[in-house]
């Protein structure tokens, strides 16, 4: 396990050193830059946590962006329109995410449908659900009244809290939430029995099945966990944008997959880890940040990111 870690760490260090060189008149040397980078990648990082679990089983989850969208819409709806207490709204959103993920897992394991297809279907379905729930509108603090006029309601406290920075303005709450979810994933993968089964299924599903591993249950759990992390990401996203956008999370699945792969988790399954994904998240985060503080346009940023993904994966491949 050391060698992929060293490789992923190497990639991160290279990017970091580039940042030190092109530091945009010292902007890269300020903690605020790093804090903002961490804030910006946290939502993607949450999706990447679930994606890592799924990819280690040898699967893929294309529905993460859409589930994020549903969660963002529901959270805004529950908090702003229904005025539910924040903890009930959070629990309800988490349950919705969990259910969507579990549904994907059920379709994949029970009916033996390829993860790519099943989660593609969930991606489309969940986006539709998000639009239906929101009536196609962004759910914001401008609430339409019975007479057709808009009235601005105050932003719910929970939005403001999640969107705030703590520890004397040094770290964002969303980053803390991301790190907690990262830790939860790490415990699941390294310390708990289902985690071992996740690796075994990705490494050799048939051998695992013949060793009595409850393959179907573990797969459902894995996709459900991914759905849960998506829901958390949706809550964070809604809080940051102060609204629930039914389009939220569009194409985020691709960024999440890129982060996992750059970390060095193999798409074949069976190999990889959550700490590798953290390195992948930071690598992409820093890359984007360095390019943006140096005022590189979005066009060049996207092209460079594409090239970096290929380079990083080639670097991982050299071993075999």
């Amino acid at each position, binding site marked *: 396990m050391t060698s992929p870690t060293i490789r992923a760490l190497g990639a991160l260090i290279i990017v970091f050193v580039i940042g030190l060189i092109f530091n945009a008149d010292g902007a890269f040397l300020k903690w605020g830059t790093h804090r903002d980078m961490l804030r910006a990648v946290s939502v993607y990082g949450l999706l990447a946590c679930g994606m890592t679990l799924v990819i280690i089983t040898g699967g893929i989850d294309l529905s993460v962006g859409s589930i994020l969208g549903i969660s963002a819409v529901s959270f805004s709806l529950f908090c702003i329109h229904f005025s539910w207490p924040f903890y009930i709204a959070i629990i309800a959103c988490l349950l919705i995410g969990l259910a969507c993920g579990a549904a994907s897992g059920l379709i994949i394991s029970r009916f033996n449908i390829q993860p790519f297809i099943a989660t593609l279907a969930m991606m489309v379905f969940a986006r539709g659900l998000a639009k239906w729930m929101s009536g196609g509108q962004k759910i914001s603090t401008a609430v339409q009244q019975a007479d057709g006029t808009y009235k601005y309601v105050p932003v719910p406290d929970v939005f403001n809290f999640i969107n705030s920075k703590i520890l004397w303005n040094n770290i964002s709450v969303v980053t803390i939430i991301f790190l907690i979810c990262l830790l939860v994933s790490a415990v699941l993968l390294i310390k708990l*029995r289902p985690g071992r089964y996740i*690796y075994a299924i990705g490494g*050799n599903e048939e051998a695992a*099945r013949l060793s*009595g*591993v409850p393959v179907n249950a573990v797969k459902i759990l894995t996709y459900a966990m991914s759905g849960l992390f998506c829901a958390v990401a949706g809550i964070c996203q809604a809080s940051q944008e102060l609204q629930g956008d039914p389009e939220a999370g569009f194409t985020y699945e691709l960024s999440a997959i890129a982060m996992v792969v750059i970390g060095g988790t193999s798409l074949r399954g*069976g190999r990889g880890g959550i700490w590798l994904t953290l390195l992948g998240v930071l690598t992409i985060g820093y890359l984007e940040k360095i390019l943006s503080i140096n005022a590189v346009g979005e066009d060049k940023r996207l092209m460079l990111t594409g090239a970096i993904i290929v380079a990083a994966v080639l670097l991982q491949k050299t071993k075999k």
Partner: protein
Amino acid sequence: MSRISKSFGPVEVLADVNLDLYPGEVHILAGENGAGKSTLMKILGGVHTDYSGKIKIEGKETDFKSVQDATEAGVSIIHQELSLIGSLNVAENIFLGKEKSSYQWLDKSHMVEYSKGILKNFGLDIDPKRAVDEFPIGIQQMIEIAKALAFNAKIIVMDEPTSALTEPEVKKLFKIIDQLKEQGCSIVYITHKMEEIYSIADRITVLRDGEYIGTETAGNLPCEKLIQWMVGRELSQQFPRHTPHIGNVRLQANNIFVPAASTNPAPRVGNVSFSVKAGEILSIAGLQGSGNSELLNGIFGTYGKDTKGSVEIDGEKYKIDSPSKSIQRGLALLTNDRKSNGLVMDLSIIKNSTLACLPCYSRCFWLRPADERKAAKETTESLKLKAESLNQEVDSLSGGNQQKVVMAKWMQTNPKVLLLDEPTRGVDIGAKHEIYELMNQWTKDGIAIVLITSEMPELLAMSDRIMVMHRGKVTAQFSREEATQEKVLSAALGKRKPA
């Protein structure tokens, strides 16, 4: 082909083998599993290119670098498994890699017409524009044969072509073989069925353990002599089977039925019953396709509820369900292919060895690595597994040590019945001996063992009883004293033991 030798790593699988073919003859290549028949044919077909020896075709020495070279020289091989692409149509399959085209523009109508003609020659009146997977397996097999013969093959190798064919289809095939003989083709025919050998053979060449035994015309090689040639080795190896301590019936399997797989219309196992007692080793002998391996897999629950029949362990009767339920009931299955379904190659020795019994090493869901390490250490030490570290990935271990990891995994589940499917396959001599000793130890501890092995000396020396299967049915049962190589092989070839 003269003095052909071939090694896989340090293992020599063919040693100075000769084979000559005359035009217009059917030449049977006979031998037990692992005798080297398929390897020899893969050399002829250009699949294996690193061998020593010479191949001459019509007096000209050849040196095939690829399958294409061999095809161009007129060698065509019909493999046991179908190599058709189901989604393409019949004509596209026949012309695969040899498409008729002008400037990359396919001449479809020509290919369809040509295919139709070829198929008609075989008495197959089917539309070549239909996709291959719309046809039943028997027809697909005939299409495969038609494909092999479509382009002027001079030498045709058929590796068990009838295993998926029904009786009338076999007759049809034999008629085609007669036609091909008249056209001057040489046919190499590999089969495990005695009646086929004598209904079409002109000459027979026998291989045994990679060595050339002899060639004789079919008339001069009666059945008894053929079997003698196939098995006639000395039982020189030392096998350490001690006197068994036979106890009560541990496993009773009743009317086990495993339905057909998608590639073959015949049921894989048809209503087989047997029992094994504590401390006993029962061997289930059989050649390829006999269904012995499928029988063990069926009992273990590999095919889930598709397997019909009931099983009793220590008198407790139940319906076959799933591998995890079977493990809880005290069954353990060592599969015949540890790489594809026995081990997770990317995981460490410890993690592989505890995989079947992980709940034993975790409280609620928390794993207890110290307990896992302790258990893995104990079991692997008792199996004399050699490894630098228990954290080593099993990928880096030798075959024998990998097999011991699989055994360690099953020992940790405290099985009552061990189903061992080729436990010594791909294992060096030293490790083999250790595995035999382990089997003795297990029977002493009261475990019942069901063994499958394709090595005849191992079979005869290690079993207390032998049950022989042929095409999914039991053809004979022998006690340890009754069994001889000849008796077992002739039952495995489908001859029923006179009652």
